[in-house]
């Protein structure tokens, strides 16, 4: 029999072992796994460990980062936004069509951002006002946005505007000969803004509160209505901003752009440690999530000889490896 006295003072204190709060663990775990994978890639493939490959990860995923940022807000409140991919396509379409029609660039940018945010507002309002599940409303929004693309033009429209072209092809030289695009800068700015809003404003804290318990948040007298609608506006805004970045990336508007990108965005957010049930997660996690997905893509293209089906299988397997490792790390600590 164990003597109660033996371990008398011991049991209470052991909770202090982790200096990082538990809620950061998933993000850190994701990051660790990301770095590890990158390391594996560097060992395996020649030319993988270059700064430019890392920079390309950002260049090629700038729009997805912005989408994931918006999606993080929505998911933090326990909602979901399936419309983001279509809104990206719609944004590229509006931008291309408007530029073709000779609108000035500033007006085009404004129009795109306004239409995305407006659609977000409408969806948020329906979700809140009529108590309809976000899934249906944003799915309808997804149909609508994609449908509007076709209404504008079935064919793809090239962007010939010189400002857009300059922005798209221009690059910023970083020390070490690494170049990034303006899109990356905009995406990172969006991330910073999101972190600020989520952690340093009342709106942001209310987002977390609503996700934790909407009824409690309401009883606590918080502005739940504003937040519940607001997150969809933010997501709509981010989608259209992402759409602008995408039109820079593609220099075209096309109604079949970004098909299924909503799933990428959701996956990035969830891989980054956010819970779909709401209230738990960080924007930074979502960014790392995007990088993870991007790394998987990069690994695939560096592997270079996978057949089409093995490509899919390997993507699935790598995704699994990521989340399984992440779970292991979170559980161990």
């Amino acid at each position, binding site marked *: 029999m164990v003597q109660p006295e033996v371990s008398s003072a011991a049991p209470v204190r052991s909770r202090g072992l982790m200096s990082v709060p538990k809620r950061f663990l998933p993000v850190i775990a994701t990051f660790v796994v990301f770095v590890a994978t990158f390391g594996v890639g560097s060992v395996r493939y020649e030319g993988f460990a270059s700064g430019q490959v890392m920079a390309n990860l950002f260049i090629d995923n700038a729009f997805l980062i912005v989408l994931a940022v918006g999606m993080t807000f929505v998911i933090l409140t326990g909602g979901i936004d399936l419309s983001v991919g279509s809104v990206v396509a719609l944004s590229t379409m509006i931008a291309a069509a408007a530029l073709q029609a000779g609108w000035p660039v500033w007006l085009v940018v404004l129009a795109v951002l306004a239409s995305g945010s407006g659609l977000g507002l409408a969806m948020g309002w329906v979700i809140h006002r009529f108590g309809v599940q976000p899934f249906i409303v944003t799915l309808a929004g997804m149909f609508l946005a994609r449908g509007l693309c076709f209404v504008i033009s079935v064919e793809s429209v090239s962007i010939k505007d010189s400002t857009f072209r300059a922005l798209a092809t221009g690059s910023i030289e970083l020390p070490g000969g690494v170049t990034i695009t303006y899109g990356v800068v905009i995406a990172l700015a969006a991330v910073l803004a999101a972190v600020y809003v989520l952690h340093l404003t009342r709106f942001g804290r209310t987002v977390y509160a609503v996700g934790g318990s909407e009824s409690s948040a309401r009883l606590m007298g918080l502005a739940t209505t504003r937040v519940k609608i607001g997150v969809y506006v933010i997501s709509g805004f981010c989608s259209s901003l992402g759409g602008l970045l995408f039109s820079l990336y*593609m*220099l075209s508007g096309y109604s079949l752009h970004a098909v299924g990108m909503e799933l990428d965005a959701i996956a990035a957010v969830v891989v980054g440690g956010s819970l779909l049930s709401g209230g738990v997660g960080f924007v930074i996690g979502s960014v790392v999530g995007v990088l993870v997905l991007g790394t998987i893509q*990069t690994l695939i293209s560096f592997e270079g000889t996978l057949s089409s089906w093995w490509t899919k299988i390997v993507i699935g397997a790598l995704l699994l490896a990521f989340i399984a490792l992440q779970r292991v790390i979170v559980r161990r600590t």
Partner: protein
Amino acid sequence: GSGGSGDAGSPSGNAKGDDKITMGFAQVGAESGWRTANTKSIQEEAAAAGIELKFSDAQQKQENQIKAIRSYIQQKVDVIAFSPVVETGWDAVLLEAKRANIPVILTDRAVDSDDTSLYKTFLGSDFVEEGKKAGEWLKANAAGAKNVVELQGTTGAAPAIDRKKGFEDAIAGTDLKVVATQTGDFTRSGGKQVMEAFLKSVPQIDVVYAHNDDMGLGAIEAIKAAGKVPGKDIKIITVDAVKDGMTALAAGEINFIVECNPLLGKQLMELAKKVVAGEEVPPRVVTEEGTFTVDQAKTELPNRKY
């Protein structure tokens, strides 16, 4: 069938003295049997020509194709080839390739760029022409038929747009009229579902024009279920000429198929060697493709590989 236009290149490397040419090929995806045949042809012919092939599947996403091309630039391949998902939006990445001095060959579909120096040549079919061929045949063999229903490919997809356009142009000014048109997403079940609905809502259907064989095969099922005889009661025209389509054609269930040849591999490898060697190549190389009637199908069918 495919045929090489140039002479077979020697399999022993290129002029620059590299022991082996490396080609980066960014495929759209593997969304259809046609595409798979296309991929297979390229892989096989690359091996036969002694070209090292780096292959990537973009899962139908243009951004993935762009990423793949970027990574080829990084990996300093000798030549890049790809089938553009869509014709717009390639300027930036092609410019990068140009700056890196890597020649680019387009297959399957052109890109819409003012700067034609961005790529060396374009090897592929002409979708508008395919639609036209279908229309022309119908005009010549209409025999009193009037009402055409059209099974479109995926809305917004280039082949769908062009095959529709070519067909419309060809039948313009005749008695022939497209009375209903709807997308069947290039799939058999799509074609079947749409055709089922047409058979009930369109009073008189004389001709089905399907943008690919698969939708046509789906339509055949629907027509049979409605108690009609495909190929007789309702004429069927399709594009592609994959094996299943040719079988149906030989059986008289399809009346006419316009070929869209996926076996570009050999021509592509020849072009690649020339391009790498710095030789002049024509800016546009059209793949050899024909059309098949029922009788032609019967003779051609045994040779069909895909």
